């Protein structure tokens, strides 16, 4: 598939523990297997412990770009958590950005302790809509919980990403990478999560 921009800049954002590093690695591997040049920059370490996390993917037909996307130059935002989507658009959004959003909140300890409030999710979604050219949503965490483990949310999101047809990726590519990266007993469940994401995601 032709990239609508080169480099095409993707941010996968969320909260430490949601699996954004694995999601970015799987997506990167899928693209490299199709001969794209990919750079991924990730937040690691202390930020994993319940902090806001991001992976930056730069996808190009020809050049290796820096692992950090410049301000205002995100083309596609995949947010695993609602307010994290707004946090990222603050720095990297622009009028042309497209957003794929998991609508299930994770409360920060600042909210749990009562020092901050978590906004109504519907308001967050409408703000994200105002700041994006196109928006797709789904409750990936709920699907993962129905499957028995919230750990699948990131894979549900990748399935949704494949279905919205913004990036040159496909289901067979996903299966191939999962076979390489994870033990074979985990293949079936992951493919199921991937397919579920594709079924449920909707443009709003």
């Amino acid at each position, binding site marked *: 598939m032709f990239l609508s921009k080169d480099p095409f800049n993707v941010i996968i954002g969320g909260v430490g523990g949601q699996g954004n590093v694995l999601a970015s690695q799987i997506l990167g591997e899928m693209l490299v297997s199709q001969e794209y040049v990919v750079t991924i*920059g990730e937040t690691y370490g202390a930020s994993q412990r*319940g902090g806001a996390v991001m992976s930056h993917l730069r996808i190009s037909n020809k050049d290796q770009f*820096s692992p950090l996307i410049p*301000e205002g130059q995100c083309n596609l935002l995949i947010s695993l958590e609602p307010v994290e989507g707004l946090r990222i658009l*603050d720095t990297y959004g622009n*009028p042309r950005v497209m957003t794929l959003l998991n609508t299930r909140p994770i409360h*920060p300890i600042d909210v749990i*302790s009562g020092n901050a409030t978590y906004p109504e999710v519907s*308001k967050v979604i409408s703000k994200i809509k105002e700041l994006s050219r196109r928006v797709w949503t789904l409750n990936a965490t709920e699907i993962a919980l129905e499957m028995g483990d919230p750990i699948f949310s990131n894979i549900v999101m990748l399935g949704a990403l494949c279905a919205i047809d913004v990036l040159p990726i496909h289901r067979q590519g996903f299966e191939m990478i999962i076979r390489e990266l994870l033990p074979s007993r985990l293949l079936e469940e992951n493919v199921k999560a991937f397919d579920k994401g594709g079924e449920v995601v909707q443009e709003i």
Partner: protein
Amino acid sequence: MSSVAQNAPGKTVLLMGNEAIARGALEAGVKVCAAYPGNPSSEIIGTLAKIAGEMGLHVEWSVNEKVALEVTAAASLAGLRGLCAMKQNGLNVASDFLLNLNLTGTDGGLVLVVADDPSGVSSTNEEDSRIYAKLGDLPLLEPATFQEAKEMTKTAFEMSEQLGLPVLIRSVTRVSHARGNVSLDEIPKASPKPRFENSRPRLAFPPVPTHKALHEKSEKARQMFEESSFNSYRGPETPELMVVTSGSGWMYALEGVINLNVRNKVGILKLGTTWPLPENFLLENLKKTDRILFIEEVDPFLENNVKEIYAQNCFDLGLKAFFGKASKNVPDIGELNPEIVTRAIQTLLSISYEPRPPDYAQRAHEAASDFVPSRTLGFCPGCPHRATYWAIKMALALDGRDGFVLGDIGCYGLGMGPSGFGQMKTIHAMGSGTGLACGFGQLDRFGLEQPVVAVCGDSTFYHAAMPALVNAYYNGANFLLLLLDNSATAMTGFQPHPGTGSTATGETAPVIDLRAVCEGFGARVEVVDPFDVSATVETMLRLLQDEKGVKVLILKRECALVSAKRQKNLYKVEVDQDRCLGESCGCNRLCTRIFKCPGLMWDVTTEKARIDEAICTGCGVCAGICPASAIRKEVA
């Protein structure tokens, strides 16, 4: 099979910078690899540990960075190739040995990778390790891309053997912990036989002649670097501005030039070999322009050393304007990014740059400030450290003498923040909590009335706290050491250590028992499970108030992330909505406002606590905290 181990020359794979370094070492025929884990360096040796068996390597997690360097230096002195990796703080620990090894020299290729962490994303400090190359007259390479990380590692092994010196590679977070395309080359099959040459003893002594020999090697390294393909100039023959850069700065500089569309005005001088600097190559390129901007992460290392070379040659070169950290065009603290570099170039060219419409930026900013709560770092749900700090808070309050906690490095360093209830009051180097306690524990003779408590993780204890504990008993210090034994080096990715019973490569190892070690060092030792909160508080309080001396309390409970890999949740936890009295309870929302485990939520509609089933790991600790017994745990 791990793509790092594939013998598939010509194939392109996606590798993390650290994996690319590991792959480079394999392609160079490395045999012995050692490290103490520390981000952003951990995956270099971690990757090699996973494939040690199939590749025929010895790979170990050493007890600390100095020992790791000694282990790999031994391989070198026996003629094999050795790879050692560490983070910036690690090089401080290893430096004593390194600054003698440079004098004795090496045989088999010895490469020391140090991964710096600009902004201290996963560190307690921000530090530029390149200064050690200058201090020790050691050759230094700085990769800018993933492919280069692999190639430089191979070159470093070759150079090390040609010079008889360890070669340093300085990486940074955005090279080590980023991923990109890497094209693979062949992995050789040679298996040289190690032998120590008795006729060539390796002595730094006498220092003056060995220092002289070191200077000669350093000069030879400079000559090699003059021709290195890792150094290059890209841009117009007479640029308006020349960016001199290395490592991660190079990609940001390229990005800046693209963003501003100034390829015809700005040249980029990329240096891959940054100590000793290739003086002639630099002088040749400095002639191209009279305006020079330095882009590099952390300290002005290139900036100051290039200026030194310029000063020596200024009559030939004429007047030049240098921009960088000294001129405040680039920040002298924190990590760089494409934005900072783009703005620095923009200012010097006096051109405009607008990455997005200003009204959009304003709307996005308003939405974020209206709606986005901050997300303070905290312990994971089910983390034993939360329970430990809760017990510390209770025990110190019950004791009532204003006791304080001396901290150390690991996940439990978050004990300084809200999820450790602000209990931890100091943090310095590995083992320093116990070392400081040795000193505070002597001050009662001058009238210090507060009880002294130190915390230390299991891996940190083996790394650097053991000598401090010996010192404490020998010199008669008074304090309580809390050993937070979660059976893993959790912060850096759950690597095994001498207390876990397994090695880096997954083989069974003898357990160096924490209790036996502490008792052997003369301390009085007790063990509790921090999830038994009341017993933990009671034991801590008793030990605080007991007779003088060194007392050790081991808080034994496996890291929640490690146990989650093996077993399902211990308990199913629920908040009984009838029993929870909400704001009217009088507990002041103890579970959420004070204990604040992320697995709990405060439901604003019912005004009661509940469990977030997507987060809770079922440790059950909160059930013991609720005064209304509204939080119930049932064995899952």
